[in-house]
Each structure stands twice: as C-alpha cells, then as structure tokens.
C-alpha cells in the first residue's frame, strides 16, 4: 500500500505526458539497438576471425625455435672471439618426437595432439610452377583437429592414408595446373628432392591463399622431402578445452618439454590486436550513443521536475519524505528506461536477424553476426542501469525542493 502510492503517482505522471515519455524511451530504444547491433557485430567478427585462425592453427604449438650461434667466450675476463652469429642448422628438429607427442597427449588438459612435418613445396606441370608449402601429417588426426574433412571437395582423406605416394592439394593448385583426382603431380622441395605423387583429394577452405599453396602428404613423404629420417618432426600441435586460457596450458607444457611452446594468441597476435582494437572502438562508440540516450532521460526528467515543482511541494507538505520523492522520479525514469530498453532489445534482435540473413559471398559467406544471450542480457541491464542513474540526479534535485519557498511564490 505504502509503496503503491509512489508508483501510482509516477505512473500517472508518465501517462499524463505520453509524448515526452515516448521521446525519452525512443532515445533509449535507438541507443540500445545500435549498442546491441554493434556489439553483436563485433562479437561476430571476432568469432569469424577465430574460426579462420583455428582452420590452420591449433591452440598450442610446440617446436624447436631457431638458435643463434653464440660467441665463444672461454673466460669472463678473456678476449671475446668475435664471430658472425648464425642460425645453427642442426637444432631445427625435435628429438624423439614420438615420446614427446605421447607425453603431451597424456596431459589431462590436452584434448588432441598431432605431429606435423612442414616443407616448402614447388608444384609443377610442364613449365608451370607454383610455390607453396606442404605438411606431412596423419591425415585422420589432422582432420580431427582442424575439421579438415569439411573442406574436401573431391577424393577422400582415407585415400591418402592408404596411398604412401598420395597427396591432397588445394583447389587453387588443381585449377592452375588443371590437374584432377587420380592425376599425377610433380612436387619438389627446397632440398632438391623431386617426387611424382598421385592426387587423391582436393580441398577448398575458401581462403584463396591456402587453396592455391597448400598440400598434405603422409609424414614419411614429407620427411623424405626434407631429407630427414623418421625421427624428424617440425612441430607438435595440441588443442585444449578452452582456447581463451591457453596461456595457462602453455605454462604447464613448458614443464614437460624444453622446446618452444607457443599458444595461438602469440602466433596470431596481430590478428587478435586488430580484433580487440575493433571491439574497443565499437564498444566505445555504441556506449557513447547509449549514454546520450541516458542524457535524454536526464533532460526530460529534469524538465518534469522543474514543471512539477508545485506538485513536489504539495507532496512534501502532505507528508511525503525526500526518499518518497526520489522513488517517484526514479520510477518514472525506470519506466521510460524499461520501455526503451525493451523496444531496443527487440529492434536489436530484428537488426541482427536481418543482417545475419545477408549473404556477403565467399570466403565470409553469411554476415558474421549472431544472437548472443550474454550480449543481450548485459545490454539490457546496462540500459536500465544508465536510465536509473539518469533519473537519480533529477530525482535528488526534486527531493531537495523546499515546499515553503514554493508556496510563497
């Protein structure tokens, strides 16, 4: 009963000035919709670029980094023998990769791990030559990690497993050399090894760069291209349950190996920095639009308080306390804000729905924008919070009205 009277006064105020209420709410609606839209878009872009990253990157990569030869110093005070620092050639390989791979796989926080042998490849047919890179992999494990099977457009993964001299190439290579399934392709490496391999599969990831440069072979084939023995592995890739906290897993893995352990964030620092700058900008712009909407409510309520100063004086004269007056005006802001944010969420949803149906074309496909509950819930609360704050200051001003000074006028 006691609460009711404040709210019913607030409601009457709101209803008796519908146009102002709608104007204020509309400001919030627009601010809210733009805020939601931009944040969904930003999240969509981030998700898209992540997906792109994980097409060719695992969460964690273990490899032997280049080591520089050190100057020979025999003694602290002795003469330094100046030499020309060079990359030491011998250190490139991982010693006993099988054991390390098994070790990595044993870790409870590793969901998946594979070994890769990478080499520079030159694909040729007659006088045409294309430069690219090849990876020797266990194709099934590889597919499990990168969802590679999804991108196969001809042939099969299994065919590579069955054929020691098989190769899976990108669709770009296949087009440029006009070679198809079951054709032979000449591949040479930077170590001068030349092999004729049989095309058992063609993939198309949508990334032009990948499609016209990459190929996959069996591990043994790749080791032969590098003139290396069966011990040689370029890198071990591992996936974890949560890529966001990959750094923690990196720290753990560093305890079991002396090789360089790097997470995808380090490898793709440039892309991620771009993502976070974009996220920050979109967030800042949309937040300021929302704040402007908050100022709209602030303005309208301030005006209401000025116009209703007589009413406030009467309410105080008949026994309403400062707190009651604050409640009345904050409720008015709340009602406007609730209307506005609700309509804003609906509009935002509609915008996201419409945008996500727009086909942009390859490689992106549909516009990368999704409904994400946490963004919507967060925005709803933020919108309400801003409007309540916007309402509080005029309400406090109202609560300080001195009735006597009003009655004397």
């Amino acid at each position: 009963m006691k609460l009711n009277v404040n709210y019913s006064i607030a409601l009457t105020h709101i209803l008796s000035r519908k146009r102002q209420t709608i104007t204020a709410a509309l400001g919030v609606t627009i601010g809210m919709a733009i805020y939601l839209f931009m944040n969904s878009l930003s999240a969509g872009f981030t998700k898209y670029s992540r997906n792109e990253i994980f097409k060719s990157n695992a969460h964690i990569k273990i490899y032997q980094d280049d080591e520089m030869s050190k100057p020979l110093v025999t003694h602290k005070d002795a003469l330094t023998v100046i030499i020309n620092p060079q990359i030491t050639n011998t250190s490139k390989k991982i010693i006993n990769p099988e054991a390390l791979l098994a070790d990595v796989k044993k870790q409870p926080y590793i969901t998946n791990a594979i070994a890769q042998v990478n080499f520079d490849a030159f694909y040729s047919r007659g006088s045409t030559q294309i430069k690219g890179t090849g990876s020797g992999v266990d194709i099934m494990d590889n597919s499990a990690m990168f969802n590679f099977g999804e991108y196969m457009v001809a042939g099969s993964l299994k065919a590579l497993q069955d054929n020691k001299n098989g190769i899976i190439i990108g669709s770009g290579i296949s087009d440029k050399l006009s070679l198809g399934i079951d054709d032979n392709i000449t591949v040479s490496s930077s170590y001068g090894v030349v092999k004729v391999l049989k095309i058992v599969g063609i993939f198309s990831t949508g990334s032009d760069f990948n499609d016209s440069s990459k190929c996959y072979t069996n591990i043994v084939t790749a080791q032969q291209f590098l003139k290396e023995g069966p011990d040689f592995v370029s890198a071990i890739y591992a996936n974890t349950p949560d890529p966001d906290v990959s750094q923690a897993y990196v720290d753990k893995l560093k305890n079991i190996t002396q090789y360089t352990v790097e997470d995808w964030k380090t490898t793709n620092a440039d892309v991620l920095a771009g993502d976070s700058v974009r996220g920050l900008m979109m967030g800042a712009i949309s937040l300021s639009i929302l704040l402007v909407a908050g100022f709209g409510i602030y303005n309208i309520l301030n005006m209401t308080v000025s116009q209703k100063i007589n009413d406030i004086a009467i309410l105080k004269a008949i026994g309403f306390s400062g707190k009651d007056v604050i409640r009345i005006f904050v409720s008015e802001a709340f009602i406007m804000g609730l209307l506005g944010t609700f309509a804003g969420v609906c509009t935002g949803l509609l915008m996201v729905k419409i945008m996500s149906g727009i086909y942009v074309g390859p490689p992106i496909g549909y516009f990368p924008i999704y409904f994400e509950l946490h963004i919507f819930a967060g925005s709803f609360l933020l919108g309400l919070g801003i409007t309540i704050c916007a309402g509080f200051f005029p309400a406090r001003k109202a609560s300080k009205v001195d009735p006597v000074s009003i009655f004397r006028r």
Partner: protein
Amino acid sequence: MQDTVLKTQSVSKYFYDPVKFRVLDDISIQVYKGEFLTLVGKSGSGKSTLLYCLSTMDTDYEGSIEILGKPITGSNIDTLAAIRNENIGFVFQFHYLLPEFTCLKNVMIPALKLGRHSREEIEHKAIEKLEMLGLGEQALKPASKLSGGQQQRVSIARALINDPAIIMCDEPTGNLDSKNSKIVFDIFRQLSSEYGQTIIAVTHDNDIAERSDRTITLEDGKIVA
C-alpha cells in the same frame, strides 16, 4: 485544564533578503485540543510565515515548537514529513492540487501514504468528505478541470482525510462565495466541537474571526492581541 496540542516558545524568525528583518518576534502561544483559533493581521504581518513554522515545513526559526507534547524543533525532515502526514492537515492560501489526478485521488493520496486503511476504506472515506463539501458530483473529474472555489474545497477534503489532530488553513475561504464560506465554517466548527480537532486558520474574514473560539492578532511579527 485543557490538553495542549501545540505550543510555541519564543519563536522568532528573520529574513535576510534584501535586508535583515525580523518577520516573527518572540511568539509564544498555546493551542488546545478542540479549539478553533483564528490568526488575523494586516497583509505582511507574518501570518503565513508563522503558520509555515507551526506546520513543521519551515524549520529555519529560533525558539521551540511542541506538537502533541513532542518537541519537533530540530527533528529530522523525514520525521517531520511523517508527523505532517499523520497529524496535520494543511489548506493552502492558493488551492494546490495535483492537476493530473482526479479530485478523489487528490483526497486519497495522504491516506494512501499513511497506509493505515485499505484502499477501499480510503476511497469510501474520501467520497464522504467530498460529499460533505458539496463535491460529490466532481469526484472523478481531473482536479485541473475545477473552478478555483471547487479546488479549494477539494484541498479542504484532502486536509481532513487522515483525521489529523490539527488542521491549518491559510485563508481557507479566500476563494469562496458566502454560501460556501458558510459551509466551510460550519464544517470547521463541527470538527472542533464534535470531533475535538484543532483548527488554526489565518483569515481576513472578520465574521469568521469573530465566531471562532479565540483570535490572535499579529502586527509586524508580534502578537498584539
């Protein structure tokens, strides 16, 4: 010995704008239960100012005021608001209603705020008060659609809704014709004699002043009679 409902002790008040001057000068009065007291005096003599101090709305004075035996001087403003809500009905010099609300709702609001009775009871009582003041027909009209005199009577009904111990009026009949003035006067008379409510009314109407229980005359902020 009669019960004292309101008592002031050496209440003085100054205004500083534009120059310092003493608007109330050492006012000490006692008002009793069931008394119909009128305050008279020339315009500018300080009647309204005194009434605002007595009503607890103005706290900027020297001296002390007691209401229903409790000193209220220096109390916290929320406490004072609660005292006003429960114990003081106020009729303003210029009828002040909330324009967006119906007459009925205007009358009900102080009772809804007090929250002592159910909504139905309050509504019933509010209609009773409005009928008593000859406004039964107007109950559901918005307050802004009423004439000045009608609005003044609505504000009297509002002052009565919580059955306050004290009813303070600043020229309650200022806007009324002689017929309605008489109705209001009769109601005040009845409230004080039959229900023991205390009436403190500022008035320029000599007729009313003469027929009240006691009249206090102010001149330049001092009680002269």
